[in-house]
């Protein structure tokens, strides 16, 4: 960043000055590297190593055969990309594609519902009314409950003689295979995480200056126009971050379907559950392969999201930053000229 910005404003100067300046940059670069190295080492240990270890693991298989006495043959066996080929086209490929579909389906549906509900919640909470603090605090409760616990709570709600069936007056077996199981997961997930989106959006709303609305009102803009033309565009950067967080979260969804509906229910099985299942059956190679595929999927989705929707957010921010810097520079130059 520094070099990019420094380049255009570098004034025509003598060679000595330039050399010293270059040396400065190098020196501070080295210092920066030294100062940052603990961070990089920790990151390499905590993020880099597990990813590489998982990648390596995904190329091996172990303990799959029995010897004559019935003991498991020990030792790692390098199998190349076999684990990956099995995932995409082996006998369990349909399970993988099913889980990929479930993961994607949950991501799209829950994120859309949670965004809409979250915005509504934020708009309501943004109004000044008595007891607003209480509402804000209580909205946080679902978010504060651990997912496994809330999944248990929802399992009681959705059991055969539970509250859900009493309310709709029908006997739906929510936890059996089928679309109703998906629906149960979506409802429980929305209950839990719409407040999260709501709170983030609320923070964004509070940053919008009031005079913008006053001006709009003077111009005779309707409430809908105010929302569509002012609120939404101004809250968009925050909203996109909230959506990105939610997407990354849902793509890894595990505990909610696992506890609420149960393990090995194909209609709600997600990629994380598949990886868990393989690992608990001691097939670490396959499990690592599933995890890697999930990792890549999450990375691609996040990248695409940032590219498609977030690109101009970052662009705007950069532009704004550049604009601010330019005006600062201008002011500085002006002052210099005045003083000299």
């Amino acid at each position: 960043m520094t070099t990019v910005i420094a380049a255009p404003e570098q004034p025509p100067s003598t060679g000595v000055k330039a050399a010293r300046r270059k040396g400065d940059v190098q020196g501070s670069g080295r210092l920066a590297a030294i100062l940052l190295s603990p961070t990089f080492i920790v990151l390499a240990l905590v993020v880099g190593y597990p990813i590489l270890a998982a990648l390596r693991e995904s190329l091996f298989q172990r303990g799959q055969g029995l010897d004559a006495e019935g003991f498991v043959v020990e030792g790692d066996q390098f199998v190349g990309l076999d684990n990956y080929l099995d995932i995409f086209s082996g006998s369990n490929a349909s399970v993988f594609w099913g889980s990929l579909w479930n993961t994607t389906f949950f991501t799209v549906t829950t994120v859309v519902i949670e965004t809409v509900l979250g915005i509504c919640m934020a708009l309501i909470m943004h109004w000044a009314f008595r007891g607003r603090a209480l509402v804000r605090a209580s909205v946080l409760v679902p978010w504060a409950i651990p997912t496994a616990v809330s999944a248990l709570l929802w399992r009681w709600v959705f059991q055969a003689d539970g509250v859900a069936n009493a309310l709709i007056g029908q006997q739906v077996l929510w936890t059996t295979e089928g679309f109703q199981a998906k629906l149960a997961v979506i409802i429980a997930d929305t209950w839990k995480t719409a407040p999260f989106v709501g709170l983030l959006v609320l923070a964004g709303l509070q940053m919008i200056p009031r005079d913008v609305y006053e001006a709009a009102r003077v111009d005779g803009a309707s409430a809908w126009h105010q929302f569509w033309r002012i609120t939404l565009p101004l809250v968009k950067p925050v909203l996109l971050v909230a959506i990105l967080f939610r997407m990354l979260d849902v793509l890894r969804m595990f505990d909610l379907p696992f506890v609420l509906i149960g393990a090995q229910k194909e209609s709600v099985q997600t990629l994380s559950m598949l990886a868990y299942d393989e690992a608990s059956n001691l097939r670490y190679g396959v499990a690592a392969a599933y995890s890697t595929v999930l990792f890549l999927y999450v990375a691609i989705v996040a990248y695409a999201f940032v590219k498609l929707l977030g690109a101009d957010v970052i662009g705007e921010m950069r532009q704004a930053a550049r604009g601010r810097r330019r005006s600062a520079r201008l002011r500085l130059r002006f002052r210099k000229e005045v003083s000299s």
Partner: protein
Amino acid sequence: MVATPLTKTLRCVVAAGTVLAMTAACGGGDSDSGSDSKGASAELTGRGPITLVQGKDTSGNVQKQVDAWNAQHPNEKVRLIELPEEADAQRQQMVQNAQAKSDAYTVLNLDVVWTAEFAANRWITPLPQEQFDMSKFLQPTIKTGQYRGRLFAVPWKTDAGLLYYRTDLVKKAGASGPPKTWDEMKQICDKVAKDGVGCYGGQFEKYEGLTVNFSEAVHSAGGSVVDDQGKPQVNTPQAKQGLDFLAEGFKSGFIPKEAITYKEEEGRRAFEKGKLVFLRQWPYQYALSKKSDVKDKFDVAPLPGPNGPGAPTLGGHNLAISAFAKNKATALDFIKYLTAPEQERANMLATSEAPTLTELYDDAELKEKYPYLDVLKESLLKAKARPEAVRYGDFTKAIQENAYAALTGTKSTDQALADMQAELGKLTQQ
């Protein structure tokens, strides 16, 4: 070598900390166990402090027994390590301990279905069968501690399904006693199972309970899930009769629809609310139901079958010694201590967990406290173990998958059993 367990633990911790669901990667990757593989046949030597590893000691009685042992053996003290209540979580921790080749765990309290996996992976040591008086144990329980005919774990606590029935309704139907066959059961239900009262329930949710209930039905019909060589035998007329009993039950309403979501507790609640005439359940429910609304209106009987009493599935826990532990001689003595009549008797009095020694089932005091003991003994003697499978997780999954499909009607019973046979066949080939 010394660093290996540590690096592995570190790797697991590190991996668990990341957001990338990469936890799957732990489990170690070093194939350096040339010398350790002999551990499986090593002598049981060494004396000193050991640990006993099991799920939560909810009654506190195990700690009491450990304390009594420690008072007598000041140099060979036992420390109780409690794992989570969930069986899966217990297994996971024991597997991790074994893969790190750690000596932290000595005596392992294994669920009966884990024996084969732990033995085949050389995680537990073979035990000297001649040092235990095997004739004193309930014969079906011994098999649950064996792998390929060798003793790897000593039966400690056992369990078998019983038929809980409503005495008042059975009487109202004009029957002289609890049903002995499936047909008798249906006849009773035809008369009294109406107005929101269902007939028969069990554990039919897609989990281990379904495997138990399925194999129970198959064994009761005279079939078997695997034969003596460990080869699957589910594509037989007997197995079909067993699965048909359950699948037809759901179709005809003899088993209420919501029973497909029942685990143990859901079934118990339904029975205690008076919504079931019959329930297949473990003995633990007896004491609980004695405090419920149906306390004076129920009793237990052996499970029925198609032509007479059925064959329940064995549950329970066995004691084994970790192959990587120190002080195995002490561990062996401690197992002998826990499985001695006095200790098993005291344990049942405190916890209601059924003992594995035959003589205790004729003990007057126990019988008075647990009136179902005669029925339980009769059931246990007819009980069958679940298959001895090294990859039990895959094995039970294949059973659940297909049995569930048959019960929910997405597959015919013929199709489900054919598929199950094929999948189980693949698993036992290797």
